[in-house]
């Protein structure tokens, strides 16, 4: 191959269409499956947020992330169902598996979005266009999983992400489920967009750009890189100059390292008593430490976040000397943090979360410490790790409820009913 020729990259983004709604319909074909106006995210009585809404419901203005109570005011006829978590995870893995048959480089951007790098596969697919290959992939996913995906494509992850919005078939367009921006036409494609559509241009940046007279991508294009740097500063100016031209060299990373892991729970009814919160905390700490070990990681920083009934959110965190991974230590530290937060303001709470950061591989916990015996309960001992490994083996055999912490037993039913809980894995460094 001639080294002087730069081969354009072939990146796709596969985005499952109304993923949670589709899965909810699949697991309950006679209930949710028959409801055109469907909201997934919790029950009508719960105080969770809309995880996903059917296209029919979206016409009423219902959007993901909106409190369910508000969604129901907009669309009173809608039927709400909780997120079928296990099925969603399984279906997500199913789609990922099919995508993996087309390229070894698949990166899960979230539970229902995957980037694929098809660079170097041209000959494998008889030199057909990237759009043709994307159609093949789309058909295969529908055949293998019964779920449909829309696929955007281009020479970068940025272009693929923007293109996928044009791929989704909707009532008012003639989209086919695949939209690929051919190499060389990125600038022309982007010129039709608003700046707000570009990822990472949030409300505050939009405001700043608007004050400089820039709302559309087309407003930015006439400015040279130097002018933008003068207006916005060196880093942001250069960043924007590249983005509006579709330039973004981020690689598709099949195993992006997690930077944070968290578990949170929005309660069906505000919890006012310390015992009730302590109980929820035990359950969250146990789940997040299990996630941690599942990823082969250990953590040094533990953060507890509490959202009071009046939506005031407070958090406390602590960084330990050594990386830990056991339920006991993570719970012990989280409990101290919760006690501190509750001492500062003891009012009913609507949400609690436990997050782990400063992550390192398991091996980070292999360095033995000098003062183990002296520093008290927050130091992880060999015994803690042995217990954690045993817990994992029991859960492997009997499922996640096979063994639970004493403090997390019992009350889940009464508090957790209709509650909204989330597992998060963050790969962005803050």
């Amino acid at each position, binding site marked *: 191959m001639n080294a002087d020729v730069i081969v354009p990259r072939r990146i796709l983004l596969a985005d499952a269409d109304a993923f949670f709604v589709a899965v909810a319909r699949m697991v309950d074909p006679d209930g949710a499956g028959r409801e055109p106006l469907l909201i997934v995210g919790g029950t009508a009585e719960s105080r969770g947020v809309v995880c996903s809404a059917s296209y029919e419901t979206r016409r009423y203005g219902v959007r993901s992330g909106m409190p369910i109570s508000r969604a129901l005011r907009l669309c009173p006829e809608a039927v709400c169902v909780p997120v079928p978590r296990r099925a969603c995870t399984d279906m997500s893995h199913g789609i990922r598996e099919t995508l993996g048959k087309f390229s070894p480089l698949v990166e899960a951007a979230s539970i229902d979005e995957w980037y694929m790098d098809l660079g170097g596969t041209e000959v494998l697919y008889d030199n057909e266009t990237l759009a043709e290959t994307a159609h093949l992939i789309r058909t295969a996913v529908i055949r293998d999983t019964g779920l449909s995906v829309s696929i955007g494509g281009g020479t970068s992850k940025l272009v693929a992400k923007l293109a996928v919005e044009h791929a989704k078939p909707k009532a008012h367009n003639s989209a086919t489920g695949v939209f690929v921006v051919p190499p060389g036409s990125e600038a022309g494609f982007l010129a039709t967009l608003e700046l707000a559509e570009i990822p990472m241009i949030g409300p505050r940046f939009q405001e700043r750009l608007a004050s400089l007279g820039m709302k559309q991508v087309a407003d930015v294009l006439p400015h040279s890189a130097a002018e933008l740097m003068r207006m916005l500063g060196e880093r942001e100016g250069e960043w924007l100059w590249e983005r509006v031209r579709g330039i973004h060299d981020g690689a598709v990373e099949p195993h992006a390292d997690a930077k944070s892991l968290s578990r949170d729970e929005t309660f069906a009814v505000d919890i006012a008593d310390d015992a009730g919160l302590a109980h929820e905390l035990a359950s969250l700490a146990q789940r997040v430490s299990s996630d941690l070990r599942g990823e082969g990681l250990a953590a040094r920083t533990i953060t507890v976040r509490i959202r009071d009934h009046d939506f005031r959110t407070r958090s406390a965190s602590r960084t330990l000397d050594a990386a830990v991974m056991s339920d006991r230590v993570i719970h012990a530290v989280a409990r101290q943090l919760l006690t501190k937060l509750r001492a500062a303001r003891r009012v009913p709470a609507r949400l609690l979360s436990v997050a782990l950061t400063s992550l390192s591989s398991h091996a980070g916990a*292999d360095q033995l410490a000098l003062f183990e015996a*002296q520093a008290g309960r927050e130091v992880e001992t060999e015994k803690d790790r042995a217990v954690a490994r045993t817990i994992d083996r029991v859960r492997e055999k009997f499922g996640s409820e096979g063994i639970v912490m004493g403090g997390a037993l019992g009350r889940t039913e009464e508090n957790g009913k209709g509650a909204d809980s989330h597992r998060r894995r963050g790969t962005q460094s803050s």
Partner: protein
Amino acid sequence: MRFTISREKLQEGLTAVAASIPTKTTLPVLSNILVEATEKGIRLSGTDLDIAVSTEVAADVEQVGAITIPAKKLSEIARELPPSPVKIASSGEQRITLDCGRSHFKINGLPKDEFPSFPSVKFADSWRVKSGELQKLISHTSFAVSTEESRPILNGVLWELRPEFMRMVATNGHRLAKMEVPVSSSGAPQTSDLIVPPKALEQIRRLFPADEELEIARGENHLGFRSPFTAVYTRLIEGPYPNYDQVIPKDNDRVAICDKIALASALKRMSVIASDQTHRIRLSFNSAILRFSVQTPDLGEATDELPVKYTGDPLDIGFNAAYLLEILRYIPTDEVRLTFKAPERAATLEPEGWSEPGKYLCLVMPLRLVD
């Protein structure tokens, strides 16, 4: 204020004070250097509120006075000046003029009253220590302090003063360095434990000639060190230091004596293949041979061997190679004596055949071996 100073003397004074000036600060006056012209000469001082350094340099003072001037700018100017006498004069409370040869500068500063006063440390109750002894303790221990904020107490070096000796200890919770020397100081408080930030100790190591007698005095929560021309003040870290004596093994019964340079070379070779995160290497001691091995998934493996004098049962133990290499850099003898008890217990490293008065001991906790 008006004085004339040689370019070299000005640079000397500025260099001494520079390390105490914070690079980022919310209090603008801390980026400045306090210049005081007295009948004896000029005194330059800087502080980041944790430590303060003050030094006197010879100058021809015409008119006494004081002002603060941006430290970085003054240092940059001093560096570029031609080799001629430097004339500095204040013009008002907030500005100086600086003339050297045909160069002329006007620099804005801040009034001297805005500069924080030094911690009150009464040198009337001071004791004296030979600077060289202090420097020996500092350079062999302060490398081991913790740089993490999670346990502030370990960010300091423990300085123990006892009637017959003084000792410094530093640790980050994984490795520890401890050195003691017999006391040849006078007037020291009989027994005192001070936890000193390493940044201040570094200044003491740097600023005072080894043969100088230092006067040391303690204030409420500060410590002051002073020679005829230079003074260093530092905040002390409060709180009980962990009971380090309890973690020093007394019954390690496996002993190896190795050539320090050969051991360090082998460790460096193994480190190339060791994991970037853990630097994990395996040491296997068996009669007269120390065998090194390292295996890193996705990278490869390596082995090496070194003849050693070893007594005790065979032993396989894992370490962070970086910890061992760092300690070996400070071992003052050609041979090093290592002792062990078990693969999950602390190992010790000591100089073998050290003729100087004093005791030096380092500890390292092993890394678990994964098979």
